[in-house]
């Protein structure tokens, strides 16, 4: 299981990865599930990016600047910064040359005024350049941070607009990365990587330029002596990157092994697996050691190699400068200056592999962010939406078909009309299409063929705000935000008062539950509602739905085992919730179907039977069989 661990401070990512691993071992509580839609993998971003997927760095740069044009200011500032920094660095060797040739060894001997004057002037220049550089960098940072903030928000907003199909459990970590770590790597690139590129190139160009002024032949020789570095360093760097990729893979494997030892602790002990697990862990850490040492070998070689090339350059400059220099009209100071100029080259050259690495990571991050922004929104909203009247709503499906992106049909030929105010139970075996039907009702997806009308209006014509007010869904898992009970319920209608919230509970017969809470409405529910039991979370979700007062309520029943007391409260609340509106429940409990006005039986994507519970039992068909097995499994013999 390879995970992408590219970044330095990785607490967040690692906790996310841990949470993802844990999700795989979520406690059972559901029967065999419906065929899941083809899971979008993190690589799907590449699929959406189309031409961006294979795009080189320049293309990403161009597209990125188009999306956030404010970054262009940063680019200009970077160039200024580069020139200023290079000038500052070049000042010293030039000063040395001047002082040695004109102030010390010149025809007039030691000229104190010149020496002190030039030194003072250079010192002042250096300080001024420092101040200028600092001011420029500050502006650069400010400009970049502003554009990154806007990029972060854009990506976040777009992700929420994406259809639900894009939000799988596996995907979540990747989506969060778009808004966090990918932006971080981009920030590092724009505030350091890009700067380093331009600054270092300018220094190298400037150094060779000054060398050329002193003597073009010696400059050429120096360039040639350095040339092989252009092959050696990238080779080293590529090997290092490959090794680092392997490190990331092995680190991921280590992570999984440790995680298994922890989450499977009881199994390890129950089956006496301590020694074999220890062996595996010892193996994986040894592998990690080996791979990391390989990467270390390459990284250990980089600076020394640059150093050696530098020394070859210096030695060559000395030899040639001394042998030919006087003949070529060089001065003593110029030869000495060469030595210091070559010294200037070492830092940029040594940095190159790190710069290239950071650039690749930055561009990769940018590419992913641009990719997510380019992902099409499956469910486009109408510009001028129709509103729905209040009160219970009718449902009308004509020739309804639905298939996922890869063509597997899930719903076929669904034609039905449901009167407003009906309490409907949707039943069917796994894979029958009932959950998909519920998704279509709340417009989490659009039908592939056919239409779906609620309250007489085609769903695609409804304004989003109106649709959300009139049609509500209570999903299976009872997700709650990390806030108080009251705040979570208020999400059903933002302008509700505390009293109205309490009323919602009372109407559903849940006043006693609310009263029993230690802090009443202000009781915090914890992360994802962790302080409440699964059943209690459903109660809060129901109160939220009640507060919202929709004309059509779609309920995806939880299947996890709930204690009898909460079970009773839920059943009662559901009955009350159904009053005054149309309610469609995806039923997993016998009692739901028995209590419903109308039962729809789905099989293989079609509605095969419809009628009341009693009617269908009499019919002796698919529903009757389901009913039998429900009964048989629960009554004692």
């Amino acid at each position, binding site marked *: 299981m390879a995970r992408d661990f590219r970044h330095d401070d990785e607490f967040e990512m690692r906790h996310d990865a*841990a949470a993802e691993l844990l999700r795989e071992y979520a406690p*059972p509580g559901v029967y*065999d599930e419906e065929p899941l839609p083809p899971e979008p993998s993190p690589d799907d971003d590449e699929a959406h990016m189309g031409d961006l997927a294979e795009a080189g760095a320049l293309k990403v740069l161009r597209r990125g600047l188009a999306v956030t044009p404010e970054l262009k200011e940063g680019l200009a500032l970077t160039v200024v910064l580069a020139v200023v920094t290079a000038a500052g660095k070049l000042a010293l060797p030039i000063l040395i040359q001047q002082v*040695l040739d004109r102030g010390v060894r010149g025809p007039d001997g030691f000229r104190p005024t010149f020496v002190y004057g030039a030194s003072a002037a250079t010192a002042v220049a250096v300080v001024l350049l420092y101040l200028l550089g600092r001011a420029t960098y500050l502006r650069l940072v400010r400009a970049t941070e502003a554009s990154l903030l806007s990029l972060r928000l854009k990506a976040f*907003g777009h992700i929420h607009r994406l259809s639900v199909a894009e939000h799988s459990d596996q995907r979540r970590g990747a989506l969060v990365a778009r808004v966090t770590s990918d932006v971080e790597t981009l920030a590092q690139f724009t505030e350091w990587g890009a700067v380093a590129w331009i600054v270092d190139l300018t220094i190298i160009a400037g150094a060779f330029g000054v060398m050329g002024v002193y003597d073009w032949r010696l400059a050429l020789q120096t360039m040639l002596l350095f040339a092989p570095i252009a092959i050696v360093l990238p080779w080293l760097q590529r090997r290092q990157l490959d090794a680092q990729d392997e490190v990331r893979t092995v680190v991921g494997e280590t992570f999984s092994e440790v*995680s298994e030892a922890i989450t*499977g602790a009881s199994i390890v002990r*129950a089956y006496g697996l301590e020694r074999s697990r220890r062996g595996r862990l010892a193996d994986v850490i040894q592998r990690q050691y080996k791979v990391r040492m390989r990467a270390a070998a390459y990284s250990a070689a980089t600076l020394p190699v640059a150093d050696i090339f530098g020394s070859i350059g210096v030695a060559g400059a000395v030899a040639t400068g001394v*042998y030919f220099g006087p003949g070529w009209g060089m001065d003593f100071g110029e030869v000495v200056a060469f030595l210091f100029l070559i010294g200037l080259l070492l830092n940029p050259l040594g940095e190159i592999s790190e710069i290239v690495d950071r650039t690749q990571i930055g561009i990769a991050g940018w590419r992913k962010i641009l990719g997510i922004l380019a992902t099409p929104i499956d469910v486009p909203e109408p510009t001028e939406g129709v509103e729905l009247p209040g009160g219970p709503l009718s449902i009308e499906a004509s020739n309804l078909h639905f298939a996922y992106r890869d063509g597997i049909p899930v719903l076929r030929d669904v034609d039905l009309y449901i009167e407003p105010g009906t309490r409907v139970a949707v039943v069917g075996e796994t894979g029958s299409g009932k959950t998909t039907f519920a998704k279509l009702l709340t417009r989490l997806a659009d039908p592939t063929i056919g239409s779906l009308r609620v309250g007489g209006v085609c769903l695609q014509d409804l304004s989003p705000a109106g649709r959300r007010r009139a049609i509500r869904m209570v999903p299976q898992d009872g997700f709650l935000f990390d806030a108080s009970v009251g705040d979570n319920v208020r999400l059903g209608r933002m302008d509700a008062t505390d009293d109205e919230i309490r009323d919602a509970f009372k109407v559903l017969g849940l006043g006693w539950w609310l009263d029993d809470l230690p802090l009443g409405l202000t009781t915090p529910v914890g992360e994802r509602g962790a302080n409440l039991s699964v059943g209690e979370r459903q109660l809060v979700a129901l109160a939220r739905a009640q507060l919202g007062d929709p004309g059509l309520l779609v309920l995806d029943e939880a299947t996890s085992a709930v*204690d009898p007391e909460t079970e009773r409260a839920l059943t009662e609340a559901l009955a009350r919730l159904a009053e005054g509106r149309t309610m469609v429940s995806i039923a997993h409990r016998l009692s739901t179907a028995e209590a419903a006005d109308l039962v729809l039986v789905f099989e293989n994507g079609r509605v095969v039977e419809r009628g009341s519970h009693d009617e269908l039992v009499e019919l002796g068909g698919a529903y009757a069989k389901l009913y039998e097995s429900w009964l048989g499994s629960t009554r004692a013999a």
Partner: protein
Amino acid sequence: MTEGSSTAAAAPTPTRSSSILRRGASLIWEAMRLHPGQFALAIGGSTLYALMAVGGSMALGRVTDEVVTPAFEDGVENWTIAGGVALILGVALARSVGAMFRRYFGMGGSLRMQKTWFMRIVDTYLSVPLDFFGRNQTGTLLAHADADIERAVTALQPVPMSLGVIVLLVAAVGSLAAVDPLLMLIGLALFPTLGWLNRIYARGIEQPAAETQERLGRVSAVAHESFDGALVVKTLGLEQREQARLERDAEALRSARLDVGWMRATFEPALETLPQLGTIVLLAVGSWRVSTGALDIGGLVQAMALFGILVFPTRVLGYMLEELPRAVVSVDRLERVLANPPRPMPADGAGQQLPDGPLGAHLEGVWFGYDPAEPVLSGLDAVIEPGEVVALVGATGSGKSTLCTLLADLHDPAAGTVRVGGVDLTEADPASVRRSVALAFQESFLFVASIRDNLTFGEDVSDKEIAWALDVSRADVFVSHLPGGLNHVVGERGVTLSGGQRQRLALARALLRRPGLLLLDDATSAVDPVIEQQILANLRRGLSTTTLIVAHRLSTIALADRVLFLQGGRIAASGPHTELVATVPAYAALAQAYEEEDAA
């Protein structure tokens, strides 16, 4: 605050105090003691590098005086030129070798220490009693094994270099003194100033850097929660609200990053400008000294070259001092984990063996609680005869699972004895217990491995046995439909098994042991009721074992010979189901509730 529990891993703000430095030093010392070879080579390389770095500047000085200067005056021998070239290259080569050794073996030392820590933590995780995992979050434990260890050893990497820097500084001052005492004085003014500037920078950036990390964490948390509830956000139309939430935290992050940027903008260039100014002063003063004959130009060149190489090394020293407090914090956390004692077990082979065949169980005065202050079982007595099928019934939280784990020897009772097959479990040979007692949990954990490996754990089990176990647990059909069948790897991308399928596999796994005592803790809760009936019927028929079933369904209870009713931490009643319904009101009420729930 229980022993061994870990505190949250928020980015700690390192505090500089002598105790931290002392602890840091002992950390480094321990690593060097455990892996002396690597560190010796690294430090040797570092010393060589330092000496050769100073040597490089000396070489330049000599070459200036004896090769370049004469070349522009009287002329110079080819020999001399060759000698100068050889000197420069030789010193460079030695310096490079030193640098490579320093870097490579420095990593070697720190990575070996990583291995050491890792195995220590792993050994603890594998040997502590189970309640350790109840007290600590998995995410935190993973962070210990991963991020904390990495923090603890990262500080070791710059150690060889830092020691080398000390050599470098001493050698630099020494060589300057030999060249010209006045220049040395300038150097002595510069080096500490650089160090002081470094420290201000490091101290000043700590706080904003920690803020940035914390705020990044908050942004991440908001995004994560928001995407987690994407469905709710969509259906309730909360997009605007979520956007506003993120914007607030992202703004805070931005301002923290601007603070960091300010520090960087001010100090990073300053750390380069200062040596430049120093070199200019050197040049001016040095030129004057040359003019008075007190100094050769070569000496001046040497001094200026020296200044050039000093910036980076001093920063490494600063870097290590920065990392050290964080490493100490991580080591503290690791040591707290390691302080957890392993579960006391009889030595291999020393314990008593459990007999063969169906086993009875005898619990006497058993007390147990995950939190010792809140016992779940209080003075429980129970007897299970060999070969019986017993249903364990009780309200939620009454301790049914706990009882099962005690019978499976996963926990030791706080008081009282648990005997299986007549043997006190605290004196039993662990291997024998594992062979004879099998527990299937409600949460059926499967490793990322093939189905076969998950069933047999690599032991030699015949295909016939496996087929039998899969048949009894009604898992044979779905396994044969999986791509690869028994060799299908669980948990990889692709087919994810449903809860019911996992449970059936876990059951097959338990059965393969041919246990004398089989404990089913809600082990079929996610399985379709019809299938569950078949499984239980198969169990009754096909196994000569004692079975204890934790049951919530009347159909399950009906299968048992006898019911043990767990209430108030004890067995409140025991007998056939119908008898208990008639005579024990609390039990009847519970049974009624189960019936209603099933009907729902």
